[in-house]
């Protein structure tokens, strides 16, 4: 696969790893947050931690739209699906997230709710066309990468004069989340979360461009390197961050130049601005209320807004008391710090969202880190 395989090349990886090892100063630590869940997944899937020197610590950030979706919003989606005759279309990622009363979309489906997994928002529109007698709701989640496809779906539904299609909008914004972390007391005041730099999201940045991160680099004096999705991209971005930190620079650099420009995708941004507007505040699982961090459907398109159409009321549901997803999403705690990690809370029986999504910090650690923990214990007791 062109433009994929080349960026997974083991020989190049060794070169970049050697450069990182040579340039990372043994006298300091480099605490780098990879914001995006896809990067978390790449790091575990390719065993990147093996290739980094011990002074580099990767902190998993909250860039996993499934992980930050509050329980209350899943409850809303389940309630929608329970309405007689309604078809709820969703990306498969949300199906197993545990919600209230021991339910999930998957369990609701087993109980008879008409919930259909779709690959694209266009599929949801098609289903609405094919079933004019049924109400169809598209459960929209995701960061800025996934928002333009939802905008296109709404505009298409309008073009087709569909009277039975609407969107339950849960789109969230990356810069707001980054700001929230940098403003958190652990980072700002307490210094309990040492955070030196960010690996910026790959595909979000193809849409929003590299420009929005310039504020963070400047205001908080932390370097940001936007990285592509492949393991070599991540390694190269780590090298670029190490260099910036060694030089005392705090700039926005772009490793993913083959797909990201400073301005991003103007057409996509315009379509999003046409259909959506900012919510004053939105609850993020683990981060609490974050101002201007999420989108809702504009009044002009209210006919396609499920929240208006079905008078959905949101009820905040607190996480299980033992669940540390909140702290983990903010990078303040590690999965192994959570009392229920690996015992009660496992991928088969997830208590919190960090364990449900394959790129959540806990799922990643369970799959990858658990082995390393065991190896360390085995070596110590040998």
């Amino acid at each position, binding site marked *: 696969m062109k433009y994929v395989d080349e960026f997974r090349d083991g020989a190049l990886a*060794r070169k970049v790893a050697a450069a990182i090892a040579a340039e990372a100063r043994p006298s300091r630590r480099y605490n780098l947050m990879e914001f995006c869940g896809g990067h978390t997944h790449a790091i575990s899937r390719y065993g*990147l931690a093996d290739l980094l020197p011990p002074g580099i610590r990767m902190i998993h950030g909250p860039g996993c739209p499934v992980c930050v979706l509050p329980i209350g919003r899943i409850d809303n989606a389940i309630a929608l699906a329970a309405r007689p005759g309604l078809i709820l279309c969703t990306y498969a990622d949300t199906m197993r997230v545990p919600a209230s009363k021991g339910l999930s979309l998957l369990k609701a489906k087993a109980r008879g709710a008409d919930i259909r997994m779709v690959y694209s928002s266009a599929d949801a529109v098609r289903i609405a066309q094919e079933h004019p007698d049924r109400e169809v709701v598209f459960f929209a989640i995701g960061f800025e990468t996934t928002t333009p496809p939802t905008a296109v779906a709404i505009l298409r539904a309008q073009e087709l004069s569909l009277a039975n299609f609407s969107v339950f909008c849960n789109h969230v914004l990356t810069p707001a989340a980054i700001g929230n972390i940098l403003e958190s007391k652990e980072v700002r005041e307490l210094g309990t979360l040492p955070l030196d730099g960010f690996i910026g999201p790959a595909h979000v940045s193809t849409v929003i461009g590299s420009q929005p991160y310039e504020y963070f680099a400047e205001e908080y004096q932390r370097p940001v390197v936007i990285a592509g999705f492949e393991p070599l991209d991540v390694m190269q971005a780590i090298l670029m961050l190490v260099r910036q930190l060694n030089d005392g620079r705090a700039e926005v650099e772009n490793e993913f130049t083959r797909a990201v420009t400073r301005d991003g995708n103007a057409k996509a941004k315009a379509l999003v601005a046409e259909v959506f507007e900012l919510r004053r505040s939105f609850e993020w699982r683990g981060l609490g209320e974050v101002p201007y961090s999420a989108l809702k459907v504009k009044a002009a398109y209210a006919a396609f807004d499920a929240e208006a159409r079905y008078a959905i009321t949101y009820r905040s549901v607190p996480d299980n008391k033992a669940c540390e997803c909140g702290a983990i999403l903010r990078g303040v705690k590690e999965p192994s710090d959570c009392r229920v990690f690996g015992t009660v809370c496992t991928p088969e029986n997830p208590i919190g969202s960090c364990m449900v999504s394959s790129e959540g910090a806990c799922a990643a650690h369970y799959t990858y880190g658990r082995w390393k923990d065991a190896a360390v214990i085995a070596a110590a007791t040998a």
Partner: protein
Amino acid sequence: MNSGRDHYVRPVDFKHGHVDMTHGGGGRAMAQLIDELFLREFDNEWLRQGNDQAAFDVGAGRMVMATDSHVVSPLFFPGGDIGCLSVHGTINDVAMSGAAPLYLAAGFVLEEGFPLADLKRIVASMAAASRAARVPVIAGDTKVVERGKGDGVFITTTGVGIVPPGIHIAGDRAQPGDRILVSGTIGDHGVAIMSLRENLTFETTITSDTAALHGLVAAMIAAAPGIHCLRDPTRGGLATTLNELARQSGCGMVITEQRIPVQPQVNAACEFLGLDPLYVANEGKLVAICAAEDADRLLAAMRAHPLGRNAATIGEVIIDPHHFVQMDTSFGGRRIVDWLTGEQLPRIC
């Protein structure tokens, strides 16, 4: 009025007819369906006797029995259908013990309303698979459930075989130092099925690899009678099978990603959907674990067989109290290949 022996019985309408409750009722309609479809397609000396059971002599040796229920959806897919899948699946389960499969039994649960044309197509496919494998279906049963209570058709097949003397193949026999082999490319069946799932349509020339593996197994045993383990990685894929064997045998494994054969299109389809080929189902492949000194001979025997052309040695068994299956990634790092969690679903994130 003619009450004689030659009154006309209308044949079953396989073109336009549908299963109805009388087909499972035990009466004339059921007898007719059995006669005109099952007996006609499977046709062998046991079924011709018309008893409720089939009698056969057993030679000396240990008998092996296996059973499988098949609920695959869609029923027809590139490379096969639920019919041949059910024949191959049970033949393979029996064969993984080293036994030569001898006979099959097949039970059908049909949903009221199921098109008889499809049923005929499925049964014909089963019969063809059974004949090609030389393992006859000698007993069977049919039931019908009301509309809405079944997914078209469920098939259960049971098979028996005899293990040749001196052969002892089981999931707990892997030992540290053993080599791990796989008989060919992984992920084909799962991707072929996935390509037909609603809302996931993508175009690919990948076909299911469904196949009866007992001939391959026989060739493997002839070359290396001391094989320790054999298993076919069906649901849950190669990763699940390796984890099962590791746990049963009480050891760990290390495999090398680069050595695992995967078709480029299977890789690409998995990229699209965010799936890992290691967890995607196979229906015509097997995993073998043998002592290091047998590995080369075994590999050669597999590659010489049409169903093992792409066989490869992918790793080895090690001491590990945690029973982890570890993988050296093509990128250079190492990770574990864990048990599958639930059903592998496509993802956007």
